[in-house]
């Protein structure tokens, strides 16, 4: 029996949020019986609706949080809606799988209620991403956005919810917390109705997800070393690194933090980076930047996702308006060197090393400070160096000859495109790869007696799922009027959603198609 004082202490908003989990339970229960065609229809409709609003929410997110670059957020939002759908449309996580030779049949069992914690840096993209993953796997999702981004996230989640229900999804399959707070998030994380927590955000939130008592997928922070060795194509490396640092002003956790370059090619690389828009600071400039960015012992969050020129200005460093990245040289990768820590801004530490082998040591030192299990990048044409790098730097993805922001997040490599980068055991995470839909499903395995005399009959065509026969749940008309009425009287119809706006579905689809072709084709794999 709960102690009276216990529930008296429930902060405002918590009981209602718990009810959202309960509604999600009902929705998940219904959704878990949907067939694949229905799931694809819903996921595609939501992806379309979300992609059509990619710019709208990119602008809103930048306005609300002050982080990042609208154009780049548009790319991420599209990648996390339409892009995710295209990537996984052929990955069937709904239909039972039959392995006749091993006499095993696997029946997918969705997690149920996914509690998605989304960050301030990639707010709407992560809402899109986790929602798409949930829909593709027949899970219900309750989103708890970062308080700094709560308005754009809540609106985006509602837009997706409306699109999902309009396409036949169960009511309540996508919900969002309007007023997130620490006690509220803790209550949701520890509530037994939460099936799995998918936590993207700072270390405290990830650690409390893991200590909640519920299954959790949380990932550690990044602090990405990038090694350029003497065998690299320097012009290409310069271009890719600068573009990656400028991408959304480095708010992706996969952005490069420290550039480690072999002495023999350092000057040439840095000169090439200058041509791409980077500014190489002298030691006084680096000192000023260090002072401004880490003056009181930790990262001044004011700089997160801000343009390079703006940061230079605040730090008292002269930089042209066209500067997109600040290069801050330092000597030694050690914890007391602020510039060796994660910066979440277009500021890149630069360290020169005498050899590739010393560079690998420096990369290990970067990851020792933070970012274990996360990612590292290398620009090299020497497979032996690349192998040595991957084997000794304790990260779980090494992007090669590509900007790491979009490389390790799978937007420009063949890794799973993701907003949640698993940092594995070494990074105190249960997830070692990029989060993808399959992480939200378990499989019930039907296992036959291995004795050859026991024959497994054919399961082909036996599918336990079905398409919904109407709105889910159906409107409760009186049982003696079931043939007469099917829906609530007009006066009780819920207000029409703002989902479609003024555009028709066809217009939206066409608009999305154009955007995809123009801006996204190189980001999104087929």
């Amino acid at each position: 029996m709960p102690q009276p004082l216990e529930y008296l202490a429930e902060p405002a908003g918590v009981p209602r949020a718990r009810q959202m989990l309960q509604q999600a339970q009902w929705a998940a229960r219904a959704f878990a019986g949907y067939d694949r065609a229905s799931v694809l229809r819903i996921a595609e409709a939501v992806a379309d609706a979300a992609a059509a609003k990619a710019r709208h929410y990119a602008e809103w997110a930048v306005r609300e949080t002050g982080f990042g670059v609208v154009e780049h957020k548009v790319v991420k939002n599209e990648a996390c809606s339409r892009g995710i759908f295209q990537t996984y449309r052929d990955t069937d996580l709904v239909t039972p799988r039959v392995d006749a030779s091993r006499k095993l049949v696997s029946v997918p069992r969705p997690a149920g209620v996914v509690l998605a914690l989304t960050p301030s840096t990639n707010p709407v993209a992560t809402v899109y991403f986790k929602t798409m993953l949930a829909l593709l796997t027949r899970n219900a999702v309750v989103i708890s956005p970062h308080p700094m981004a709560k308005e754009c996230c809540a609106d985006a989640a509602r837009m997706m919810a409306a699109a999902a229900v309009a396409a036949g999804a169960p009511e309540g399959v996508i919900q969002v917390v309007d007023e997130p707070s620490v006690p509220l998030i803790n209550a949701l994380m520890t509530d037994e109705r939460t099936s799995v927590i998918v936590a993207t955000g700072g270390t405290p939130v990830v650690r409390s997800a893991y200590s909640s008592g519920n299954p959790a997928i949380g990932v550690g922070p990044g602090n990405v070393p990038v090694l350029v060795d003497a065998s690299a194509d320097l012009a290409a490396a310069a271009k890719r690194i600068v573009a990656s640092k400028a991408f959304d002003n480095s708010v992706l956790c996969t952005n490069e933090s420290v550039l480690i370059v072999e002495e023999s090619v350092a000057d040439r690389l840095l000169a090439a980076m200058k041509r791409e828009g980077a500014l190489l600071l002298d030691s006084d400039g680096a000192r000023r930047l260090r002072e401004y960015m880490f003056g009181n012992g930790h990262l001044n969050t004011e700089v997160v996702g801000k343009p390079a020129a703006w940061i230079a200005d605040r730090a008292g460093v002269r930089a042209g308006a066209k500067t997109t990245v600040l290069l801050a040289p330092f000597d030694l990768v050690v914890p007391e060197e602020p510039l060796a820590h994660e910066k979440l801004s277009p500021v890149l530490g630069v360290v020169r090393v005498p050899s590739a082998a010393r560079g690998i040591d420096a990369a290990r030192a970067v990851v020792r400070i933070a970012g274990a299990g996360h990612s590292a990048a290398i620009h090299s044409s020497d497979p032996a160096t690349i192998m040595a790098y991957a084997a000794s730097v304790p990260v779980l993805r090494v992007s090669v000859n590509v900007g790491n922001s979009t490389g390790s997040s799978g937007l420009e490599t063949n890794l799973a495109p993701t907003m949640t980068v698993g940092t594995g055991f070494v990074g105190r995470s249960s997830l070692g790869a990029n989060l993808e839909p399959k992480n939200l499903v378990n499989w019930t395995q039907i296992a036959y007696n291995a004795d050859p005399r026991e024959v497994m009959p054919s399961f082909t065509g036996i599918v336990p799922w079905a398409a919904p026969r109407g709105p889910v749940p159906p409107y409760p008309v009186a049982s003696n009027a079931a043939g007469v009425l099917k829906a609530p009287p007009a006066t009780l119809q819920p207000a029409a959603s703002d989902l479609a706006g003024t555009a028709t579905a066809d217009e939206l689809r066409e608009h999305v198609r154009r955007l995809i072709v123009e801006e996204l084709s190189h980001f999104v794999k087929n």
Partner: protein
Amino acid sequence: MHDYGAFSYASKDEMIGKSKEFWNPDKTQFWQDSGVDLVIDRREGYYLWDMHGRRLIDVHLNGGTYNLGHRNPEVVAAVTAAMGHFDIGNHHFPSLARTALAEALIKSAPAGLTKVAYGSGGGEAIDIALKTARHTTQKRKIVSIVKAYHGHTGLAVGAGDQRFSELFLSDRPEEFPQVPFNDLDAMEQALRGRDVAAVIMETIPATYGFPLPEPGYLEAVKALCERYDALYIADEVQTGLMRTGEMWGITKHGISPDILVTGKGISGGIYPISAVLMSERAAGWLREDGFGHMSTFGGAELGCIAALKTLEICGRPEVRTMVHYISDLMQSGLADIQRDYPDWFTGVRANGVVMGLEFNHPQGAKYVMKHLYETGVWAIFSTLDPTVLQFKPGILLTPALAEEILDRTEVAIGKACAEVRGRGRRVR
């Protein structure tokens, strides 16, 4: 030893004995004879525990009083906190909590209702409604439904079944004509003389076993009221508060009643209160003589706090959707059970989570009640039609508990069927 702090009993038997001695011998004995030896002890959520510690799932909810479960934590917290500041209040003065609740009720209500008067129970609220209609129309007659149930206070009892009015010589048939449910001709006959102050209607007559209004019936009654200048009083004591999947059942019929009565579940089962919502026209006496109805405990401020929280919970979109889910699961689950016992379990009357289960025996629901009780579910037969079991799942059920209720119900219906069939054979 059963020690409850303020009092204690050596045993359940002792308690039952004292209940007969000091409280209500007939009612106490009735339950012993019915095979339901329940003395409710601990209660929490949709669970009750008998004095002996046996757990029951509550699907009676005291007519919706425990719509949100027993001791709903949010309501308890609200009332507990309020006790630091409020008490019952003084019914003569403008009151903080009464006013706040009145505003919230009007916002939740069908269009056209603008004022609120308070009672402390459903019957009192019905009396207020009937007095209000008489004042408004300056007519005396109140038309109600045969087997209607509106409570046992002075006027309400007159509008109900004779069993209860005649007992206390309170029947006044000339003032309280009754017509059969779903009979529009009879209704028109009753109204034609234009001497009727109001028709009072439970949106779905509860104690009569939830017979459903035929499609269009209530709408036609409302039209007749307009034609013959009688007020339409919606008794939403059991059909309000989201039980039909909308806040007020009457809105599903598109009806804006002249008066709406709510009670039972309105205060989450924590502090008694009831309310009468009136149209501006009906609310005349509140302008003419505001002291016209008085009740010290009516609208007690602690009750208002409980009701405000209850109304807020019931009005949440998540809760509305959950009721739709629960209603769907329950109805499909019951339909499955029906298929197994087609000539025993003959029908389900349902609108949202307002449900009546029909059995093919004059006392069928009493058998099912008893077997449900033995199987761990508490649901009650309909006093005025014992062929029908009142089946009232809560609006905050989890999927797991809803499934458990269905599992237990299936077993109990089967056992009741076996008992009745067996006995039937013996008699014949």
